[in-house]
């Protein structure tokens, strides 16, 4: 695998830029060159180089003047192309949004910029974040650098590959059912899904609003913690945001010795690839050797989580995608004879197959006569899942298991069978349905491909989870 040179830690870069030892303009050029040199992987849809270069100059000038810049001074980053940014287009990798230029930026991007970070590019994803492989991108399929014939995972495949290839020190993704953790697992990097509401969703293209979260993809836990520390907290533009931890998310305390860790029984059995199981079991053994009290925990309704998700998610998708009507922005069918045809043709031509599939399922489960049997029932089983997680967290401090039942699969392998593709998310969706934080850590390799270890904590315990993850990372 040909990657660009490894970046120093984010805190280190910012410190050196603030003291004039590194120049922001050089960092941005380094990032842009790395992007150009690795085009073959199709990780990046477009750069935001104009604004990036301007901002880098402004940062360097401010340093020269002796101004205080911020905790991310001059640090380049890459966002998944479903984050609204002022430079370039925001497409969500969909044809229907091709050409869309956002009039404002996502709160997460604004907060990073306020601390001196510089967005350099927009990364590929499954269109509208619908997928587990980036194969559903309307533009191109991102390749896994470990094996170019394999997928990087999805939907944040572009951001994950960007971090793996060292195109920037960190990237932002979104995780609705596993879209940060799965590609982190397939690419052997760190992917963090915060507690629901901890990071504002304002300015991010909505998928399933009751489970969508924003999180960092990085090389290590310390970088993730710093980025989360900057982005998190209440935002008046997103009424579902929650207060951040009063201690913030940096200065983590290694949190493993004497901690009770529950191995999720339902994730270690049938359906788990034996090679993945071996790596995960060995990782869990290391946690045990470091002083964690490890025991098996059962959450009996977990096998239902994917079915719950594939009712609730398409329902919310069908609602959120109704705004793409060809009238206000995005693709518009020019030869429509009336308004109705303008709607149906703009949507029919503009949306890709997976978006249509989810709109159709969502419309079905919300339609009169089926609402109670599907949507309401799924929301009620969701309550059961929440209760089982609450019960489990009375017995243990953290839960652990694989991030995915398999390593990166071949490009094209699951394309003809949507249900098989959905099964990639079987170990990640429950976390979104119950709103708890979870992290995927590189646990080791199997046949030359990375395996991810997933750690989970109760809602709002993000700080403790990151502390535990930082200790675990050192052991793995």
């Amino acid at each position: 695998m040909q990657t660009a040179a490894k970046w120093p830690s984010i805190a280190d870069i910012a410190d050196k830029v603030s003291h004039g030892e590194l120049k922001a303009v050089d960092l941005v050029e380094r990032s842009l060159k790395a992007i150009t040199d690795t085009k073959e992987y199709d990780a990046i849809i477009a750069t935001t180089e104009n604004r990036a270069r301007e901002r880098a100059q402004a940062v360097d000038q401010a340093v020269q003047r002796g101004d205080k810049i911020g905790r991310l001074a001059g640090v380049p980053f890459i966002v998944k192309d479903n984050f609204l940014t002022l430079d370039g287009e925001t497409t969500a990798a969909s044809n229907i949004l091709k050409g869309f230029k956002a009039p404002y930026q996502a709160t997460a991007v604004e907060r990073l910029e306020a601390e001196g970070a510089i967005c350099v590019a927009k990364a590929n994803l499954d269109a509208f974040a619908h997928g587990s492989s980036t194969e559903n991108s309307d533009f191109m399929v991102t390749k896994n650098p470990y094996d170019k014939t394999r997928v990087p995972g999805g939907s944040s495949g572009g951001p994950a590959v960007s971090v793996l290839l060292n195109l920037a020190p960190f990237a932002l993704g979104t995780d609705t059912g596993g879209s940060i953790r799965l590609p982190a697992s397939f690419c052997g990097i760190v992917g963090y899904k915060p507690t629901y509401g901890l990071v504002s969703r304002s300015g991010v293209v909505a998928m399933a609003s009751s489970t969508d979260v924003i999180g960092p993809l990085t090389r290590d836990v310390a970088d993730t913690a710093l980025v989360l520390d900057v982005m998190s907290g209440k935002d008046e533009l997103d009424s579902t945001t929650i207060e951040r931890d009063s201690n913030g998310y940096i200065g983590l305390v290694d949190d493993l010795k004497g901690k009770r860790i529950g191995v999720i029984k339902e994730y270690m059995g049938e359906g788990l690839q034996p090679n993945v199981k071996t790596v995960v079991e060995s990782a869990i053994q290391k946690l045990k050797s470091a002083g964690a009290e490890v025991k098996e925990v059962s959450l009996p309704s977990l096998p239902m989580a994917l079915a719950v998700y594939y009712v609730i998610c398409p329902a919310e998708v069908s609602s959120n995608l109704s705004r793409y009507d060809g009238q206000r922005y995005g693709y518009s069918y020019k030869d429509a004879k009336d308004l109705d045809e303008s709607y149906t043709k703009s949507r029919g031509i503009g949306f890709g197959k997976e978006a249509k599939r989810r709109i159709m399922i969502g419309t079905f489960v919300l339609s009169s006569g089926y609402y109670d049997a599907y949507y309401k029932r799924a929301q009620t089983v969701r309550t059961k899942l929440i209760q089982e997680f609450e019960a489990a967290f009375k017995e243990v401090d953290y839960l652990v298991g694989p991030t995915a039942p398999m390593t990166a699969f071949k490009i094209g392998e699951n394309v003809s069978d949507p249900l098989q593709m959905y099964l990639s998310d079987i170990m990640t969706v429950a976390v979104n349905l119950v709103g708890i934080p979870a992290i995927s850590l590189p646990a080791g390799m199997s046949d030359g491909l990375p395996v991810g270890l997933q750690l989970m904590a109760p809602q709002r315990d993000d700080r403790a989870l990151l502390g535990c993850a930082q200790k675990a990372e050192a052991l793995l």
Partner: protein
Amino acid sequence: MNKLAREDVLKLARLARLDLTEEEVGEFSRELSDILHYVEQLQSVDISGLKPTNQVTGLVNVMRDDVPHDYGYQAQELLKNVPAVQDDQIKVKRIIE
């Protein structure tokens, strides 16, 4: 339920304002039936005494003061993505004959 016939697919597409190709109608009839068959397993779960969850962190009716906030946007700036504009307004096809 559980097989989606061609007419069911067309009805859903109509509700969702989606123009589907003949090929898509056939594919979706098969695929959506598979997916709905998969989610049928939810019918076997005992949910007696449980209420549905819509919001996971327990927030209810988040309110703010009803005062306008000026974000400094100009109308033209916000209209620049609109496919058809006339007199600073969004132009759509005739809706009344």
